[in-house]
């Protein structure tokens, strides 16, 4: 009697047995549970479609086409978002401006991550005087408020890069300048995270094992230790994209950013405060797009932070 009951239990247990979830699946589940993160991701896709898909409908020449007869026209059927001070269509400019703003956000973070990881990894791995020197430098950079440093650097590099032709389009050289200076002024936080990670990871057995088998320092740093600290890098990198887009907007707003005719959401706002009363459409549309983008990226970053944290448990029931 007991035997059948026991085998029943086993049978039932086997029916309910599930495959163990991989860390990737767990991560995805934790991310999807974060409703705002999913909303942010959807918003981001829409914004990317808006600025890159829009390019199939309008050409860049239309975005930069000036018609002084149409100066400061309010939104109408022809110009849904109105026209700016020299008669350019604001809708088309937000499309092309979005491309540049998003590009600057991503590219600046690439610069930031490369610098931050390199400096943090070298300081943490080698320690000693190298660490001391690099960390003093990091601290010095940290002590100058970012916006001030950005403005000084924007002035320093301003006009030093010629215009670039890429994919048959002309980009203002100032785009490159902005990307580089945002990267140069924002790597410090990441460098500290990476350094802290390296300091603890380099004492672990797998690093010792790699050493004893004669693995080179280069490959220990990049192939053995770095993959173990990828999660915080991704989270901080994602949030940095939002900050980079904001930084671009701030310097362009103050007139030291990307030079026209190349549009960005930031430089469309330059001088807009002179038109608060007379032409609010000048700043409402690019401003809203910046807010939406930054908000969405922050939501996604927040969701990612929870998703990659292995301590945050998911009851997968």
């Amino acid at each position, binding site marked *: 009697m007991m035997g059948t009951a026991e085998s029943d239990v086993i049978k039932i247990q086997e029916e309910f047995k599930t495959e163990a979830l991989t860390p990737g699946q767990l991560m995805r589940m934790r991310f999807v549970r974060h409703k705002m993160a999913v909303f942010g991701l959807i918003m981001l896709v829409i914004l990317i479609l808006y600025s890159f898909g829009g390019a199939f409908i309008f050409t860049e020449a239309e975005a930069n086409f000036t018609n002084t007869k149409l100066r400061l026209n309010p939104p109408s059927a022809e110009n849904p978002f109105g026209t700016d001070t020299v008669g350019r269509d604001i809708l088309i400019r937000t499309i092309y401006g979005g491309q540049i703003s998003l590009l600057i956000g991503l590219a600046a973070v690439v610069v930031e991550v490369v610098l931050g990881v390199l400096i943090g990894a070298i300081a943490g791995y080698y320690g000693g005087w190298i660490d001391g020197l690099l960390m003093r430098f990091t601290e010095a950079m940290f002590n100058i408020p970012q916006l001030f440093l950005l*403005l000084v650097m924007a002035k320093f590099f301003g006009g030093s890069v010629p215009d670039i032709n890429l994919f048959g389009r002309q980009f203002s050289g100032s785009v490159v300048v902005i990307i580089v200076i945002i990267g140069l002024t924002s790597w410090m936080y990441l460098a500290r995270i990476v350094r802290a990670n390296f300091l603890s990871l380099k004492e672990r057995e797998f690093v010792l094992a790699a050493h004893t088998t004669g693995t080179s320092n280069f490959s220990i740093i990049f192939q053995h230790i770095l993959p173990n600290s990828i999660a915080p890098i991704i989270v901080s990198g994602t949030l940095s994209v939002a900050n980079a887009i904001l930084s671009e907007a701030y310097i362009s707003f103050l007139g030291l950013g990307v030079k026209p005719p190349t549009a960005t959401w930031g430089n469309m706002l330059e001088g807009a405060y002179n038109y608060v009363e007379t032409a609010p459409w000048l700043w409402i549309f690019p401003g809203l797009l910046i807010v939406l983008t930054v*908000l969405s990226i*922050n939501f996604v970053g927040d969701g990612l932070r929870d998703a990659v944290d292995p301590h945050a448990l998911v009851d997968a029931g």
Partner: protein
Amino acid sequence: MTRYIIRRILQAIPLLFIISVLLFVLMINTGDPLSTMGGRRVTRPEDRERLSRQLGLDQPIYKQYLFWLIGNDWTKVDLDGDGTAETQGTRKGILRGDFGTSMVQRGKEVTDIILDRLPNTLLLMIPTEIIVIALSLAVGVYSALRQYSATDHIITGLSFIGYSMPIFFIALVSMYIFGVNFKAWGLPYLPTVGMFDPKVGKTTGQVIQHMILPIFSLTVITAAGYSRFVRSQMLEVISEDYIRTARAKGLPNRMVITGHALKNAALPLVTIVGLDVPLLLGGAVVTESIFAWPGMGRLFIDHLSRSDTPVVMGILMMISVAVILSQLITDIIYAWLDPRIRYS
């Protein structure tokens, strides 16, 4: 403790040295301060040469830095360009408190220029900081005590939006609503630019009216970040054992919150505020530009665009010293508030 403070101050010296070299090299190469000096007139080449000699701009960079740092009254400089240095230098250098003179406003002391603007910036920033701290404590605690309620969701959502909003956008929107539309609807409206109406003059009432919108914009942005922080701190604290103990021994809820929980939850806010204070000193550059507020932020932008190295360096070094000092003060206050922390 004294030894700790002395060590921290000694550590700050190389830090400030690196910062000053970095910024000086950047600033010297940002452009030509002589180009805008003659106003509308084009400067003649010989005038240009004479001017750059007088201002010491013909010297190599390391010498310019040295003169800026320790002055040139210990050496002779060549002012007439005949190749022999015969005039005694007069500059004392920043280490002896001489920030130099502005290149744009000829002959005006940098210290005077900065001190002219500093009170205006403080006038905006001190009230802002007080309102922000009070508001974010109230909102953060309220939101934490009602976690997952509708109010909490609304507050969290709003603070996320505020946190993601560039300050110029909230500034433009508030100018549009309270300045432009209120005027159009015939409601009492707020002035949008400047510090006072030139027709009325600089009266207290005028200045207060002009302060409202900039302070409002700064508060919205800063309080959003702070209240998120307070909320998460508070949530952490109220799940701790000593709070349960306080409740178990029958203390009224109000006393548990204000007497026990809030004290520890608000503690880390000291660090955040300490990091932000020097930024406020620099004035929110963007805010001051939009509202045409004659403070340090606008001073910085105006003189940076004309490559006025002495003024820009003066502002930047002042802010850097303020950053380092406020970090030190924050650490000391923190140790004083939280007896668990000991520095050695």
